């Protein structure tokens, strides 16, 4: 209970689902062979942490930010630029953390102080504008960021796939630097999610929820709402930057398409809403569902699309084309905002007691 900060899943189905996801993630390198499964698992971990930090903003304070990918990108680029410029060693990683985190925090502070004073809508628009400017900046300053091509770099010796720890293969699976990197990502993401769970269940988190429910009353009770909102914005930005760093370490690459693009922002929104806003657990569920769909639904759609083409149906092949998977998730998104705004987690928690 302590480790969950006194906020357990509160639903048997949800607990089982979470345990299954976590066990699957833990065992991925030894159950599912192949690089693709490992990539999917690492992406689920990273996005679970990223989405959880976004949930702190969207679900707990009720402010919609479109600049979350900016912080994610700052983290990614910090690692990439440091390892590219200073060489593949641990000092560079330390430099990246020491430079990237404060930069993300400062930007979050500036945006927060500038725009959180006013309505949620202003915050949403201003973050959108700032994030798009940042994206343009990152893709234009090619001497620093590598422009549209991004930066590929080498990892420190210990984390390279070439580093083999156990001479022989272990149960037929290689134990190498790649696996170590995976567990590093998994552990760090788990730590961040647990920390966020702690934050939202602290008195500070309660104040955030009070602000979400009624800002005016929270202010009347004597809470400095701008301070709390800005603080939450900074925490979320720091976690997002860390997730970005892990992402860069995993991919050994940072570029606009993998860390800054507006489509990633939309992905985060979809994950948090489908999983369940204001629950933190929703982030894990949402990320798992979304990324599994992203990687495996497309194959299914490809089959359906070919079948529709063979059947000679008009329009349907285009709509079912594997590249259009986002269309269906977009529809699911609208439906979930409309019909079950509390997402999967909220649905599982709110079932009548008899059904539990």
């Amino acid at each position, binding site marked *: 209970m302590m480790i969950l900060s006194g906020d357990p899943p509160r639903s048997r189905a949800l607990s089982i689902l979470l345990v299954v996801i976590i066990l699957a993630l833990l065992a991925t390198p030894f159950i599912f062979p192949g690089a693709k499964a490992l990539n999917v698992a690492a992406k689920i971990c990273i996005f679970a942490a990223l989405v959880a930090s976004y949930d702190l903003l969207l679900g707990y304070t009720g402010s919609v930010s479109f600049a979350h990918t900016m912080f994610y990108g700052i983290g990614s680029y910090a690692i990439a630029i440091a390892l590219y410029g200073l060489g593949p060693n641990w000092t560079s990683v330390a430099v990246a953390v020491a430079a990237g985190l404060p930069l993300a925090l400062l930007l979050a502070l500036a945006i927060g102080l500038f725009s959180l004073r006013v*309505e949620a809508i202003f915050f949403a*628009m201003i973050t*959108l504008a700032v994030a798009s*400017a940042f994206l*343009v900046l990152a893709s234009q300053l090619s001497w620093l960021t590598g422009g549209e091509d991004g930066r590929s770099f080498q990892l420190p010796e210990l984390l390279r796939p070439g580093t083999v720890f156990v001479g022989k293969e272990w149960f037929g699976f290689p134990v190498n630097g790649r696996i170590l990197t995976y567990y590093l990502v998994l552990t760090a993401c788990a730590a961040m999610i647990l920390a966020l769970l702690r934050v939202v269940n602290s008195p500070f988190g309660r104040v955030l929820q009070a602000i979400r429910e009624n800002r005016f009353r929270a202010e009347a009770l004597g809470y400095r709402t701008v301070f709390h909102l800005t603080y939450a914005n900074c925490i979320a930005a720091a976690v997002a930057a860390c997730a970005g760093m892990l992402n860069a370490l995993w991919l050994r690459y940072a570029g606009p398409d993998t860390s800054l693009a507006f489509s990633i922002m939309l992905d985060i929104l979809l994950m948090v809403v489908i999983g369940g806003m204001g629950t933190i657990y929703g982030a894990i569920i949402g990320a798992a569902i979304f990324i599994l769909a992203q990687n495996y639904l497309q194959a299914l759609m490809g089959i359906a699309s070919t079948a529709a083409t063979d059947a000679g149906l008009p*329009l349907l092949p285009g709509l079912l084309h594997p*590249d259009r998977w986002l*269309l269906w998730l977009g529809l699911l998104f609208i439906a979930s905002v409309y019909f079950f705004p509390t997402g999967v987690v909220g649905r599982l928690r709110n079932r009548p007691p008899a059904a539990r």
Partner: protein
Amino acid sequence: MSEIAATDALPKPKRDIAPLLLPVVLAIVMIPLVGSASSWVTLTVASLAMGMMIFIMASGLTLVFGLMDVLNFGHGAFIAVGAYVATLVLLPLASWAQADSLLANLAVLVPAALLSMGVTGALGLVVERVLVLPVYGQHLKQILMTTGGLIVAEQTLYALFGPQIIPMPLPTALRGSFILGDIVISKYRLLAMLLGFAIFVAIELVLNRTKIGLLIRAGVENREMVEALGYRIRRLFLGVFMTGSALAGLGGVMWGLYREQVHASIGDELTVLVFIVVIIGGLGSITGCFIGAILVAMVANYGGFLVPKLALVSNILLMVAVLMWRPRGLYAVTSR
């Protein structure tokens, strides 16, 4: 204190002209900085034309927000849909559009623009009923719903038209430029400028000289009071939403012709620009939106000419500067 007799006219509201002068001053300040008169004229015409196009797209958004407190994050989708629908007319009739006769060109262009406006207007009706109405009054859900609408619209466009860039060449009569001495003014920019200005005047006239305009302005200021007087503001709002969507569609057609190509991502790209304009102008204000659009375009054009690197973030800097001066935008009309 002097007493006001009942027969006296109401005191005229003070005119706030400082924001109106802002673009003029900016343009004049730029004369010595740009250096040559001919490039200054070209840049100014370019910024006015671009500003008018952005204004056409943004005007609907600002009114919808002002009137009903609804912020449509999917507004960019209307822009993209408008541009795509126009290609449905422009591409099959390309021979007319490329014919060397103004009449033939217009015979393609006008129906294309009207069809776009019709389709986006109808789409506006659907979006308002399906996405906005159910979550009316809840900002968070509105933002999420309309963002979802944007995703679905963009993906549907990809599914229907394919992911490639569609070329959208200008009709022959609008190509080329007028040349006065060493000043070059492109014909299309002139047309965009005139059309945009005409739409601005038309909106201002409707808002200030008609009963409907009176109700819209009253609704922006105080919605409950208008409802209490027995007007069905929901129907009025639907009308404004559809008009705004149709204007966004028209803006999309004009932008597509300006760039001579169409791609579904113009929705995302222009949404940001349109939001900045709406924030600068003050949410709900048409005049503010007009000035904001010109300012954004001027900063982009002059900035791009003088300090190309700065142009990347010029919009943000402009927004910060304006909000420091007037935190609620140039003209704050709503009490919210």
